[in-house]
């Protein structure tokens, strides 16, 4: 397992001295304290995490920061949890969802090849006639299509709410959000800084900004110390703000508590997300966004033999490539071609040939390296109102 980890300067979020074992699908995998379930499994070359809702297509991590539904896994107590947000320190037994037989050889994969005959709304059109037949079909369909299994014996947990009143609420604890918070707090405003990640700093945690990444760590430390020293700023980490309602009313979810925040002004410094490049089979495991690679560096999971094929990704992708490519065997820059998947897989060293082998190969978990395919956001934006 350690072979697939980058060495010391990388992996700032894991504690290499403390090994943690998790069980996924009955097999034991070893990760480190600080890993998420997804990053620990990838470090063990287990890319396949789940099966899709309807066609049972293989699913693996896409963004690795909780922005996609590809990593939904089953916990003993709850279904449909995101593997890229579950720390392995707290979740030791994990199962995949929505397959019949085994995850690798799902018997319901057949549905994928029948996909063209099952358009959106197919079930509702086909199985409702004659009247009453849905009651027969429903049991079968619910077994074939669906996600996790709810645990009906689980005890409801205690949840509560709290009201907060601040002058300014800032969503996003990246460099923009932190700077805004400091400026406002120095002017005397009471500030609430909300970030959905456990570590304050946003892109300062992973983006290198310059080739040597010399500025990053000192800047982050400097800003973080200032934030923590400032009495006017209250920081909520691992907290999700899931709405922005009239007159700056913000529901913020943190653990089992909901904060109902009323602010006089609101600053959105949430950054922007990448878009996936559109091509056939771009949903398969091992085809991921640039931010995925960046997120893998955090727990130091990127394999040394990793190879990146970046599609159309612009400045950001180039930057990442130039900085972490050292550890990668080969990096390539692929223009928007007529068949990007084939292009990528050839670069990855896969045997591409024959009529359907492209799809079959793509279905297999990537043993050597992920394909990175994303469109960079045009610019980082912050809105102030």
């Amino acid at each position, binding site marked *: 397992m350690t072979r697939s980890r980058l060495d010391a300067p990388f992996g700032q979020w894991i504690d290499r001295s403390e090994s943690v074992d998790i069980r996924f699908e009955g097999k034991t995998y070893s990760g480190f304290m600080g890993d998420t379930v997804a990053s620990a499994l990838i470090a063990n070359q287990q890319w396949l995490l789940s099966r899709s809702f309807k066609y049972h297509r293989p699913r693996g991590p896409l963004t690795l920061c909780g922005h996609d539904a590809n990593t939904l896994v089953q916990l003993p107590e709850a279904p449909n949890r995101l593997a890229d947000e579950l720390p392995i320190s707290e979740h030791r037994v994990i199962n995949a969802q929505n397959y019949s037989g085994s995850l690798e050889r799902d018997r319901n994969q057949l549905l994928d090849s029948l996909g063209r005959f099952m358009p959106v709304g197919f079930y509702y059109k086909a199985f409702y006639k004659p009247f009453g037949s849905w009651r027969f079909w429903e049991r079968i369909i619910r077994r074939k299509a669906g996600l996790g299994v709810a645990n009906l014996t689980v005890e409801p947990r205690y949840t509560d709410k709290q009201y907060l009143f601040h002058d300014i609420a800032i969503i996003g604890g990246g460099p923009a959000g932190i700077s805004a918070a400091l400026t406002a707090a120095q002017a005397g405003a009471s500030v609430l800084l909300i970030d959905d990640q456990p570590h304050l700093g946003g892109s300062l945690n992973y983006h290198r900004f310059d080739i040597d990444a010399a500025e990053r760590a000192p800047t982050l430390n400097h800003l973080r110390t200032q934030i923590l020293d400032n009495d006017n700023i209250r920081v909520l980490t691992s907290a999700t703000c899931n709405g922005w*309602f*009239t*007159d700056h*009313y913000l529901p913020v979810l943190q653990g089992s508590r909901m904060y109902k925040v*009323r602010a006089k002004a609101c600053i959105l410094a949430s950054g922007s997300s990448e878009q996936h490049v559109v091509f056939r089979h771009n949903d398969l495991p091992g085809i991921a966004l640039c931010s995925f690679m960046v997120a893998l560096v955090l727990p130091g999971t990127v394999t040394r033999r990793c190879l990146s094929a970046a599609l159309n990704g612009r400045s950001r992708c180039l930057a990442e490539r130039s900085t972490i490519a050292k550890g990668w065997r080969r990096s390539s820059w692929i223009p928007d071609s007529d068949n990007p998947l084939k292009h990528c897989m050839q670069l990855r060293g896969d045997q591409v040939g024959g009529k359907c082998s492209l799809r079959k190969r793509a279905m297999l978990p990537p043993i050597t390296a992920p394909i990175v395919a994303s469109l960079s956001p045009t610019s980082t934006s912050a809105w102030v109102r």
Partner: protein
Amino acid sequence: MKILHCPLNGPRNISEFVYGGQVKPMPNPESATDTEWAAYVFYENNSIGVVREWWLHAPSSYWFIVERHNGSDTILRTYDPSELLSNPGMVSLEDAIQ
């Protein structure tokens, strides 16, 4: 959630308030015909612009007047009804503030 500035209680959540309809002159219930009375009870002007409305702060049972732009839902002014009632001209001229 929207905030409404109650003249008596200050800024409160809109969920504490009850809408009481547009301010309009009431015909004399003794002498009004059924048509006139129905028009008073059920008909609203519904044009886009600044409207003058009755609002109730339910917890304190306090009725007051809100001037609101119903296109942007911006609240322009809230005040005690005494200001309105001491100046009967304001009630009868529906379009005075438009």
